[in-house]
């Protein structure tokens, strides 16, 4: 009897003498299984996980215990070993099964099945919205973001969806890709190439995203993963849908980069996103979007965050791609000029509804709906024809071209051979060189340029936030670099500033009244009662109700916040106002009202103003003098009329040529003219 027992034990011992064997094997087999199941990852992985938990878990727990000699029941050991062995067997079976499944159900077949099952009316439309409603459940209430939107996008055409913030255009595009956040409910139907998106489950939707419909977002600077190489991110786009793998994917990636106009693509594909500029990053995003040859591209404000010349290039690229690959494009934008440049048809949205739709010619030249008309009127116009006059601005009759010419009014700001530098560990990098300008009291100088031109840097220097590296900067006759601290503070009292981002420039913990009165507190002006009165006065001046005094910034809209920034800037009756892109972050109609108010205030208070912007149309409306900057140097400066209507320098001409106008016919001509200009300058 005991001999049998002994031989049983030895038999058991012989079969699984080393306890690590089952443990290691049970880890290796799923690994191999994973490799085999590469394409059908999802299903195979689920099985693998279930098997790991149920069968392998006990083995892994028992093994170290046995190794360390803890007293465990003999029967339990035998059980663990048998479990381990059978787990390996089952694992192999699962791996084989999953592999067979993978090869049988290759992606195209499934897609066809789905397409067959869901094919309904309108098989020709690339994208079709039919009475789509989207509502969001928030803590406070249900918000109806989209109320009954219906329109189609035909293959190969560009449909522009125009609207301001809150119109529901982004939510509509999210519904087309099934990317509506979890707290949103979508009703109605959305069809993509005849397949019903709204009836699909997440797996099917995932297969469509990137391969049939892809999206280009607004912010190129943050759209790419900063720690992965561009090559990895491009390959991913193709590997996910099985279009290409490994070396093939890499080669195709290089082709794509060349297609979108990235120079030296074979080498630059291995770089990281932060080594590219904003425009280049957007090109890379577009390359990822077209990697799988989608039939539909949704572009959500793709050029809003880019400079005007870069915008023109990206729009050229999209147009070219559309022709080459024959995709349909749904372009979401609020810029009517972009609409005129790109769109075949236009859909105008307001507060979740489609208020008007038609061809680009119809909408832009003869708008019917009052909202569309308001939108078009609110857009600042750039007049480039001779003798054209933009209303509302007092233009100084004598063109003031040389700085230092005695003017009737006092010179508020003067810069002589100004150079500014950023210091990095002792070494200074000059970002602005050789700048000369004067701004007399009562005049507005527009600083125009693209990103990196140095215009915000100059504004900072005038504010005293950046030390002057070389040259003189005179504020009301006093040279800023030579002043003592106390004197500088006194000078600061005379300068007001309005920044670009209305949300970020107001302290969220201060009520409005305190925000407006803060400059007075800092410079110790007036009693608290005086300050309250002054705040009320200023609120009236910026056309806001007095009741706003006790509210907080987050309770107000962007336009209202910007007005408060302006009120704050005026609280000490400054003789100089610095405005650093104050309306760039605002909707078009809001921008129009804020600019209108700005002009009135300027006439009333007669301050000198340094207005930094990249929008030529805005500068046309406001400024008396313009200074065009490129890479820290002044390209051209002078009277507004001369710069905008008769530019002399190449860069200025390029800048003006790139700004789109909301007239399709005119825009087409402008585009031709721009291409000729670039060719003449040797840049195309």
């Amino acid at each position: 009897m005991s001999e049998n027992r002994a031989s049983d034990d030895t038999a058991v011992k012989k079969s699984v003498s080393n306890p690590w064997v089952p443990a290691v094997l049970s880890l290796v087999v799923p690994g191999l299984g994973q490799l085999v199941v590469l394409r059908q990852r999802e299903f195979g992985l689920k099985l693998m996980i279930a098997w790991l938990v149920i069968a392998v878990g006990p083995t892994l727990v028992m093994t170290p215990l046995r190794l360390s000699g803890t007293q465990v029941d003999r029967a339990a050991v035998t059980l663990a070993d048998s479990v381990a062995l059978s787990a390996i067997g089952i694992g192999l079976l699962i791996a084989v099964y999953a592999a067979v499944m993978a090869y049988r159900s290759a992606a195209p077949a499934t897609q066809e099945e789905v397409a067959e099952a869901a094919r309904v009316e309108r098989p020709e439309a690339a994208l079709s919205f039919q009475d789509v409603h989207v509502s969001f459940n928030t803590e406070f209430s249900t918000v109806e973001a989209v109320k009954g939107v219906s329109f189609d996008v035909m293959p190969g055409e560009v449909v522009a969806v125009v609207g301001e913030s809150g119109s529901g255009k982004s939510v509509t595009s999210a519904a087309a890709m099934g990317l509506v956040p979890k707290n949103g409910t979508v009703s109605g139907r959305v069809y993509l190439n005849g397949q019903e998106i709204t009836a699909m489950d997440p797996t099917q939707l995932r297969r469509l995203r990137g391969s049939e419909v892809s999206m280009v977002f607004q912010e190129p600077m943050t759209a790419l993963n900063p720690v992965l190489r561009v090559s990895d991110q491009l390959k991913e786009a193709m590997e996910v849908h099985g279009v290409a793998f490994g070396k093939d994917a890499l080669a195709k990636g290089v082709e794509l980069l060349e297609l979108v106009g990235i120079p030296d693509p074979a080498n630059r594909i291995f770089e990281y996103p932060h080594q590219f500029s904003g425009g280049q990053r957007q090109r890379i995003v577009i390359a990822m979007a077209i990697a799988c040859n989608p039939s539909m591209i949704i572009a959500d404000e793709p050029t809003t965050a880019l400079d005007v010349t870069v915008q023109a290039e990206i729009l050229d690229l999209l147009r070219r791609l559309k022709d080459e690959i024959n995709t349909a494009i749904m372009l979401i934008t609020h810029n009517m000029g972009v609409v005129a440049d790109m769109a075949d048809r236009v859909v105008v949205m307001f507060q979740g509804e489609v208020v008007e739709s038609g061809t680009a010619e119809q909408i832009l030249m003869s708008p019917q709906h009052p909202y569309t008309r308001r939108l078009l009127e609110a857009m600042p116009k750039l007049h480039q024809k001779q003798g054209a006059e933009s209303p509302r601005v007092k233009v100084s009759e004598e063109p003031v071209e040389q700085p230092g010419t005695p003017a009737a009014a006092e010179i508020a700001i003067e810069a002589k051979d100004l150079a500014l530098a950023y210091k990095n560990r002792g070494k200074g990098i000059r970002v602005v060189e050789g700048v000369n300008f004067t701004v007399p009291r009562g005049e507005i100088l527009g600083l125009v340029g693209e990103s990196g031109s140095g215009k915000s840097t100059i504004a900072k220097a005038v504010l005293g936030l950046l030390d002057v590296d070389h040259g003189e900067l005179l504020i009301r006759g006093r040279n800023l670099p030579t002043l003592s601290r106390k004197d500088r503070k006194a000078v600061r009292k005379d300068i007001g500033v309005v920044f670009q981002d209305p949300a970020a420039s107001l302290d969220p913990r201060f009520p409005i009244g305190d925000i407006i009165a803060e400059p007075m507190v800092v410079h110790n002006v007036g009693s608290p009662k005086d300050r309250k009165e002054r705040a009320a006065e200023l609120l009236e001046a910026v056309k806001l109700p007095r009741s706003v005094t006790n509210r907080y910034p987050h309770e107000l809209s962007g336009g209202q916040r910007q007005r408060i920034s302006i009120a704050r800037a005026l609280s000490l009756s400054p003789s100089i106002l610095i405005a650093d892109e104050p309306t760039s972050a605002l909707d078009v109609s809001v921008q129009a009202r804020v600019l209108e108010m700005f002009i009135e205030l300027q006439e009333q208070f007669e301050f000198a103003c340094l207005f930094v912007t990249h929008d030529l149309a805005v500068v046309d409306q406001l400024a008396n003098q313009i200074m065009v900057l490129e890479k820290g140097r002044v390209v051209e400066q002078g009277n507004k009329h001369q710069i905008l209507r008769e530019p002399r320098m190449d860069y200025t001409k390029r800048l003006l040529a790139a700004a789109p106008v909301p007239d399709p016919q005119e825009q087409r001509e402008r585009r031709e003219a721009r291409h000729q200009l670039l060719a003449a300058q040797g840049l195309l």
Partner: protein
Amino acid sequence: MTGYIIRRLLQFVPVLIAATLIVYAMVFLMPGDPIRALSGDRPMSDAVQAQLRDQYNLDDPFLVQYGKYMWGVITQGDFGTTFQGRPVLDIIQQGLPVTLTLAAVAFGFQAIIGAIAGILAAVYKDSFIDRFVQVSLVIAVALPTLAIAFLLQLTFGLNLGWFPIAGIRDGFVSYILPGIVLAAVSTGIVARMLRSELIEALQSDYVRTATAKGMKRSRVVTRHGLRNSLIPVVTFLGADLATMMGGAIVVESVFNMPGLGGQVFRSIQAQENTIVVGIVTLFVLFYVVVNLLVDLLYAALDPRIRYD
């Protein structure tokens, strides 16, 4: 980059000098006479005492003692001998493996469990799992180390008999309980940090781009979300590893493990300056090296960081 590394390595020297000097001074300033402590109850003749004092330089002024000691360390690696005649190096070599293993187990625990908890809490934000993880973490951090130690000892060591209660007789298994105790607080911190970083990463634009490409959620979380959110966590883990070397005193006492932490404690009580300084020097060295490695790792993980 090499310039940066060289500069960091050169920082070694002043840091080492400052740390050892401070510790030496503190031990030196403690009241009491080590020779008296050594003799204990038995009376020692004055001649023997004088000889011992001379041998251990106890009559020299402080800085001279310190200087002679450091000289011995640098030129011969001689960390000195205890008053009982054992070379300090021996003692360190005996205790180091124990402390290292303990630190490794604790590190492994907090890295793995902390990471898993953090990821689950972030991906299933505001669900039951998230709340459960957060509450358990708060409990783990709030309970004093001593209480956790005794609790675990009682439950798993005594009542269930799964793990040994004390000592290192049973090999690797005996490090598990002390490792968990040591890692408790850090696990909480790692999980919290990873959770908030991952939540932020999952709301970022590049994750939106990845989802729009049609990637599976799990792939998006691991490849895009984790890659970015692990960076601050890794730096924390590195710093924590170095601290764990020295912070194991309580754990080593409760679980009766012959590691360096307990050794330091006993040496302070016995006023054995040499052992204390020796072990502390080792800790300081370890800390500086680990911090340098963490900084370099940070640069390796995030391509935007470049040292010049």
